[in-house]
């Protein structure tokens, strides 16, 4: 039997005032009327801590859209969980921030869509950039750990140095620069988001130089686009191994995107305890460990390192959730990813904007809000 999860990911709501074109939320969202109540979340926090979880990541959608967020933070701390808020910052007044800190909030991860207001607002589908800069300043003036997250892709990777300089001004402890992962809303938008190989290669040099320059001041984590990697990432640190996600309506998932896989049965915290779910739920068993694997993973020496990659990506790209993640260079269906990369590096891709000219307008699919 596996030990308990290290962290609980609490997707408090799918409501969000922004519409990011790469949003990792599922395309099929949970309605606000089916959201778990404050007391139901409290039980989930208590059970997660009893199972051994140390951290809770409060996310969404936009967690600030929950009127009871302060209560939830206090409840998570009362359950002795390290409490992290992952937010776009929209709806975070100074007063509310002080209340959250007083309730025990320990870390805030604030997302930005770009360093330039016009480009950021285009990605978010709303005028939000200036507000976020204000929020970042008020966060920095207060005693909690502060991470800035910026998602990078074809349309903004050419100004990575400008993005890093922008972050530097706002003085977070950490900057997480994450290439888009292609699930949720990012999948239909992938042709406008997938960077070119020269963009990726340049970005590595820029990040490394910045890491050296900023050592001890601002830590930079860089998540590479896995389409360009030789081997896949250990998605979620292994299926049902480290993380447990509870969605707004109480379904427990091994991963944000697991809902795309047909036939998956998710148990709900309204009916079952978290311990039962972690140990018995078929969704958590389905790809746990190594037994489900076919070749080439089954006999590959990297199998306990990357667990065969991302199941949701395997399904999205091949139609078969059992398949080796096609980003792996050893995958029988790797040509699917090679084709995407070829497309992205030829003129068929959506060309990144020339510097300092008006942004092009790819036909974006914007994330819509649940009803």
């Amino acid at each position: 039997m596996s030990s308990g999860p290290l962290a609980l990911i609490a997707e408090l709501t799918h409501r969000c005032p922004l519409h990011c074109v790469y949003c990792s939320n599922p395309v099929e969202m949970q309605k606000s009327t089916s959201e778990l109540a404050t007391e139901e979340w409290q039980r989930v926090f208590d059970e997660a801590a009893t199972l051994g979880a140390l951290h809770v990541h409060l996310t969404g959608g936009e967690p600030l859209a929950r009127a009871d967020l302060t209560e939830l933070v206090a409840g998570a701390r009362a359950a002795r969980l390290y409490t992290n808020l992952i937010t776009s910052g929209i709806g975070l007044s100074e007063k509310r921030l002080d209340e959250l800190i007083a309730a025990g909030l320990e870390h805030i991860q604030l997302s930005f869509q770009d360093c330039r207001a016009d480009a950021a607002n285009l990605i978010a589908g709303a005028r939000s950039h200036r507000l976020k800069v204000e929020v970042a300043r008020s966060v920095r003036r207060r005693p909690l750990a502060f991470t800035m997250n910026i998602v990078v892709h074809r349309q903004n990777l050419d100004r990575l140095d400008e993005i890093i300089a922008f972050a530097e001004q706002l003085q977070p402890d950490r900057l997480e620069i994450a290439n888009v992962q292609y699930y949720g809303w990012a999948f239909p938008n992938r042709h406008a988001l997938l960077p070119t190989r020269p963009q990726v290669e340049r970005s590595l040099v820029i990040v490394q130089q910045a890491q050296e320059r900023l050592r001890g001041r601002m830590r930079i984590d860089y998540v590479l686009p896995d389409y360009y990697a030789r081997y896949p990432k250990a998605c979620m640190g292994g299926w049902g191994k480290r993380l447990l996600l509870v969605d707004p309506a109480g379904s427990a998932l091994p991963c944000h995107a697991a809902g795309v896989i047909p036939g998956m049965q998710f148990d709900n915290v309204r009916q079952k305890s978290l311990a039962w779910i972690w140990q018995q739920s078929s969704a958590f068993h389905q790809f746990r460990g190594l037994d489900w694997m076919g070749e080439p993973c089954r006999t590959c020496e990297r199998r306990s390192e990357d667990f065969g990659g991302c199941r949701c990506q395997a399904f999205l790209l091949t139609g078969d959730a059992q398949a080796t993640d096609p980003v792996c260079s050893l995958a029988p269906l790797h040509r699917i990813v090679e084709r995407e990369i070829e497309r992205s590096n030829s003129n068929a891709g959506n060309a990144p904007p020339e510097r300092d000219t008006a942004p092009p307008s790819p036909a974006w699919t914007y994330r819509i809000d649940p009803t």
Partner: protein
Amino acid sequence: MPPLDEDSRPRLAAGCRWSEGRGADRSVLSPEGAILVKGTGRDILEHCDGQHTFREIVNALAALYTLTDVQRIRQEAANFLEQLREKRIVDF
């Protein structure tokens, strides 16, 4: 960033704290996870309360281990704390 010197007062960084009541497996929780600190590392970190100077911490450790090679303790503790500062777990 100022380098660590004798008068620095190292402390856990904002957003980092000791986990509560989990006995011998005491760990420091940070935004990114938990680091289990044992042995010397734990002794060093437990002295980093933001009140004591690095000089005082080194002296306390020397007394704790009844060691005379203070220079070596200072060097090891300094390396350890610099590493943790890069991870944004310690500040001084």
